[in-house]
Every structure is written in C-alpha cells, then in structure tokens.
C-alpha cells in the first residue's frame, strides 16, 4: 500500500509543471487519470516523446476530445467524482470545456480544484503565455543568476516548472487535509510567476527594508561572509568540449574549514597571508583567493579533490553532469535511484526514469508503470470512475469523443 491510495486525481495538465505535480501524486499511489486526446498529443505532448515519458508515468490515460459535447459531459461526470481536479492551461480553457470551477464545485462541493496558470487568475497579465524561461525572466531569477555585468545567463534548465509542480503537490495535499476538517473542497489559484518571485524572498525583503537591489553574485553568497565558495577547474577533461570540462565546488562555511583546506592543499605559502585568516579578509581578497585555489585544483582530478576535502570535513563536490550522475555517482547507484521501466514503450521501446526521492518506511513507493498511450486506459477508467460498460466505451471511441 502506498500513502495516497484512494485519492482520485483528474489531470488536465500538459508540458512539465502540472504533469510533474501529478507524477508525484501518482508515484505515491493516487489514482491519477491523465486526460489527453489524439488531437492534442503532438510534439512534447505526444506519448512517445521522450519529454512526455519523463513526467507522465504512474498515471492512467483517458482520451477525451474536449471539443465534443459528449466528451465535455463525460468530463463533468468525472470531475463530480474526483478528489482533485488540476490543470495548468491558460486561464479560461477549462471553463470553455465545461469543467470550470463554478460548474464542477456545484456538482462536487468537496472537490480540490487546482489551477496552475502562468500568472494566476486575474490581473492585467493573467492572459500572458509563459513557459519556465518566461517565468525565470519576469521573476528576477534570470537577472540574478549569472555573473556581474551579464543579464543573459539565468538558470540552465526549467527550474521553475519543477518548483511550481512541487508547490502544486503541497497545495493539493494541504487542501485535502483542510477538507478533513471542514468537509468542503476549495479552489487553489497557483501562479507560477508568484512561485518564482517567492523564491527570492530574502532578497525582496532586503530590497524593501534596506533599499538594496540584489545583483548577480556568481557562486558567492550575496549576504554572508563565506569564502572560498566557488567552482574550480580540475584536470581530466577528455576533449575541448565544454561539456567535458571537469570542475569541483568547494565551500568553506567556517574558519575551521578554511584551515582544513589549507592543510589539504599542503599549506602553500600564499595561504598563510594574514588577510586570509578571517572570512571578511577572504571575501575582500576573493579574486586572488579563487585564482590560487584554482591553480591547485587544476592539477588534480575532481573526484580526488572532493574525496580529500570531504575526508577533512570540507564541503566539496564534483560538478556532475548527466554522465557523472548516471554512470559514476556511487550514491545514486547505491540507492538504485535510476531505473528502467519493465514494459517498453510501444513506439520508442525502452524507457527510463528517476525514482521518487522519498523512502516511506511503512508504505514504500516502488511501483512504476510506464507512460500510457492516449486512451489506453479508457475502459478501466470509465468503468472504475463512472461504472460505464465496455460497449459504451467502444461506442464513444467509434464516435470520436474518447479519442
């Protein structure tokens, strides 16, 4: 038994943020029914697209062509039986499909209705179209992630989609707990933009308290005297390709750790300069400090630097890329974190996944079902949720609204 067994989730999400939220619930045993259609299953919403396979495991697949009135009626019937209805379409789409909050809550007052739009329900930007890079830009994350003088770096992957998905899962679970007390469902308005801005909390408080506008800090901590705190080049690059460079991160969070690093480096003469005795001094001389440490690491293998530092209690870690994680990370291997789905995808064959990073002592979450094709679970979902017999399912498929 998994912890969320018994919870029924109707999933109208697409791309990453919403599907990631429902993936988490599906991994923990909720019955997540993913709504898709042949018409919409294109590009990254196609069930054989690698991107789609990453975020839609452990869900049952129901095909509904929501442009059809009969599909809208079935959609509303499903919403009436759901614990959670979730979407991350632009504002108004589910209303047009006849499954907006007002209609659904009228027939299912206990429903948790989560809307994960880009900008939230209401406001002059509510109709704006966003993907994670858009949110990163508008929220300040792109401007602040980089180095001084650059406004064109930002986070190198769709971080905010994951953050929104995680917050979406928290919201759903909290609303379910609230329903236990109140007996009522409710609507949750999650703005992916507000998730992103919220992540800059201390910097925003600094802005409004002290009038100081944060600026990119590279790998340094903008508000704390900590040094060294950076990534340093190492030996062992296998080519001139940037992807093959080797780096190690080192972060001395205390004077003691700095003294240990000096010892690990062999007490080089430069490290005995009085300016390096205090964190404030090291921060003041940070460029020269980084240069000196970089000269030391450049002679060494990144793993060797990490192992020697960690043995001395100094926080250090190889800057791992996908190959490191998948092939060379002993911790990932020991935890069996990466897996291959037992059943191949009908089109692209073998598919892979990363397991839920939570270990429940009593209700382990170790069931992983491959991504299902559009409508592959029509019969089981419509039977389980609505009591529909197979003959009516086939009729709907032939009539074109369960496709």
């Amino acid at each position, binding site marked *: 038994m998994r912890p969320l067994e018994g919870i029924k989730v109707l999933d109208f999400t697409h791309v990453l943020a919403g599907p990631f939220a429902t993936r988490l619930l599906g991994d923990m045993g909720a019955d997540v029914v993913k709504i898709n259609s042949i018409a919409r299953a294109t590009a990254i919403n196609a069930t054989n697209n690698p991107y789609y396979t990453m975020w839609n495991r452990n869900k049952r697949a129901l095909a509904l062509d929501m442009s059809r009135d009969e599909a809208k009626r079935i959609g509303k019937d499903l919403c009436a039986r759901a614990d959670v209805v979730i979407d991350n379409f632009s504002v108004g789409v589910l209303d047009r499909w006849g499954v907006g909050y007002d209609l659904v809550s009228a027939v299912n007052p206990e429903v948790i209705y989560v809307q994960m739009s880009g900008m939230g329900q209401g406001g002059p930007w509510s109709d704006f179209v966003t993907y994670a890079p858009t949110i990163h830009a508008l929220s*300040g994350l792109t401007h602040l992630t980089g180095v001084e003088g650059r406004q064109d770096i930002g986070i190198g992957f769709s971080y905010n989609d994951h953050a929104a998905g995680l917050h979406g899962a928290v919201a759903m679970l909290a609303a379910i707990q609230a329903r236990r007390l109140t007996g009522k469902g409710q609507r949750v308005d999650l703005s992916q933009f507000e998730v992103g801005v919220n992540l800059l909390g201390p910097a925003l408080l600094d802005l409004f*308290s002290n009038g100081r506008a944060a600026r990119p800090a590279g790998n340094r901590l903008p508000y704390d005297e900590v040094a060294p705190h950076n990534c340093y080049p190492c030996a062992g690059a296998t080519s001139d390709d940037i992807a093959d460079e080797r780096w190690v991160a080192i972060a001395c969070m205390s004077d003691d750790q700095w003294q240990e690093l000096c010892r690990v480096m062999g007490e080089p003469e430069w490290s005995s300069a009085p300016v390096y005795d205090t964190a404030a001094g090291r921060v003041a001389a940070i460029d020269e400090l980084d240069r000196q440490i970089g000269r030391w690491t450049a002679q060494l293998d990144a793993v060797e630097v990490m192992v020697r530092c960690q043995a001395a209690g100094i926080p250090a870690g190889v800057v791992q890329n996908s190959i490191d994680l998948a092939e060379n990370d002993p911790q990932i291997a020991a935890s069996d974190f990466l897996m291959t789905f037992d059943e191949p995808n009908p089109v692209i064959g073998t598919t892979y996944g990363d397991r839920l990073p939570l270990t429940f002592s009593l209700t382990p979450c170790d069931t992983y079902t491959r991504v299902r094709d559009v409508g592959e679970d029509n019969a089981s979902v419509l039977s389980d949720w609505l009591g529909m017999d197979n003959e009516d399912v086939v009729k709907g498929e032939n009539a074109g609204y369960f496709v």
Partner: protein
Amino acid sequence: MPQEVGALSKVRIIDLTDERAIYGAKLLADLGADVVRPEPLEGDPLRQRGPFCNDDPDEPSLWHAFFASNRRFISLDLETQTGLDQLTGLIANAEIVLVSEGAFGTSDLDLDVAMRVNPALVWIECSSFGNEGPWKDYVAPDLVAGALGGSVSTTGDVDTPPLKAFGDLNFVVSGCYTAIAALSALYHAKETGQGQRVDVPVHQCIASCLEHVFMWYWYSDLLGPARGRALERRGSLHWSNMYVVMQAVGGTIMVTPTPDIDAQLTWLIEADEFGDLFEPEYQDPANQAQFMARLMEVLRTFVGSKDVEALFLEAQSRHAPYGWVLPIEKVGENPQLEARDWWHPYSIGEHVVKGPGTPYRFSQTPWQMKPYVETDVDAKRVLQDLGWDNDR
C-alpha cells in the same frame, strides 16, 4: 465565505530543520499548521544569515524572518534533564516531526521511543545523501549539493564557471519534498492511524528536478543532431535551442518563436523583418534545423532594434511567451503582483517590511502571516500547551 483558518489548522509540527529542509517547514507553517521551532539557548544559528533589517547584523535576520515565518520559537537547554524532558514532551504532543540530520536536538531523539509513545507520529528526516552509501557522511551546503546533484553543471556560460542559481534553490527543492513527504504520510496516518518515517535525501531530490538532464542522457539519439549525452552549459540557450535571452533597446528579453512558429513568422512578415527566411534553401523540410537556427538569428536582429518593454507587451498580445528580463527592483513594482495584491507586510520585531506573498491562494482557508518575533516569547505558551504549569 472563506474561513479564517489555514489549510493545516490544528496540525501540530515540531521543526528541527536546518537550511536543507527549513523551506518545507515554512510551507507548512504558512499553511496554518502550529509549527514549534526549538532552538539552543544561544539562538538558532540561522538567525545569523543575512540580509538583516537596517543592514545591521544586530537587527533581525531577514533570511530567518522569511524562512522561519509563522513559527513559535522555544529555547531549550538540552544539557539539562528539564530541557530534554521539554523536547520529549514536544515530540510526544506532535503529529509531525521535521528533522534535518545533525540539526539542533536531533541527537537527543529516539525515533523508536517516539513511535511507541505516539504510533501515528509522522517523522520526516532530511539528510544530504541518505543514511547509507559511500557519501552518507559528506557535507554539502547548497552550492556543493547543487554541484553533486546536477543543477550546477547546467548553468553558466562558456566564459564562466558552472554556476549555482541565486539563492538556496537546491534546498528549496528538498524543502518542498520534505513538506510533500509530511503531508502524504499525514494523510496515510489519518486514514489508518499508522505513522511512519520518511527519508528525504537532498541529493536525489535535486537530481529529480533537472528537466532535460536525464532525458538528454537517455534519449540523446532521439533528440536531433548528436551532441553527446551530456549537454554543455551555454548561457540562456535552452536545450531545445528555441529559447534564449536577446538584447533589445533598454534591456534584455527572453525570446522564443514557440509554441506557434507560424504566428511568429506572421509577425516578422508584418514588420517586414523576415530576412531571407523564405529563401528556397530554408523551405526544404529536410533543412528544418537550419531554418530554425536562421529564424533565431533573424529574431536577434528583429529584437535588437525594439524597445524592450514595448516588445514584451506586443509579444504577449500575440500570445508569444517572451519574457522581459527584469531586475529585482522592477519585480518589486510589477503591475501583475500589485493588481493581485500579492505583497504582504512582514512584522519583524519593531519593523514592518513589504515582502513576498504566498505562492498559492486557497479560496476557503486563506494564508496568514503572523508577526515574526526574535526571541522565544511563545515558549511559556508552548509549554503550557504541553501541560507544564508555571512552577514546573
């Protein structure tokens, strides 16, 4: 009508987290749970993290006010039996205990004893690398956790080192997972009466939130021209090659022709700035990759002559997901946030500071922000809740 209670009203939580999981405790506290955060007599070390009110380290920490919001604080002297009894009493009275491995108080706790006293107890333990494996004793603040977890290698450019994101965003991920673990185990406990322990390793949490990184490793042969199984850091250029930050007049803007390429082309045609995109060499479907690369070049020229704000608004009016790269001071005056009344006053000691609102809004159980107190003025009440009278 909304009810004046948070979604997690009446849920009792003990917060023994450090940076790795404190964001999860914050999420639960901000949702209305009664979250008690014990700290040593000399104070929570996280109170020393900047920035500070009035930019003065003797004033309250804004970092702590944000991440330790909506808590009740209590100082405990764990060198004494009284302090240990108080901690044990708090645990026995809780529904959820949030623990960061090695944080204050955790070495004085015994999960087996706690579960015997309270079989429905939910115990969430966040550690850097889990309880087993060759790295289980490694120490990893946010930068190192991000390096090993895979996020740092994605970020930066050819002329920079690999970079961490601004803020402790790796620990935001592990914090969110901590909250998810707590609420999921709480659901199970409410349904069955059975509590349990959930382990939350930061390393795997980060690795689970890397968008394309594992996809690229597993499916690189399906994703277009071979670029190897590890993608290099390359500034703002998205792994798909279809999103990148460009220079406009007065600022920079994230530009993408997706999801509707035809609409983007129509815009370029209307502006008579489509360049050579319709030359025969780009019309051959076999040259689609070259066409898309050329489209991004044409867009760079197109964008370069436009005022950044006007371009952003024009793009969005055409449903093109451009994003104006805003500095934090512009975020602070954003019209969408103002219109949604998103900002919230933080009462921090003697100060009232405008600050961030909530990442989600509940129609029936609204968010509340209680005043942040520097000291453990709530300690007496916390102990009274345990049945300790004044004499004791």
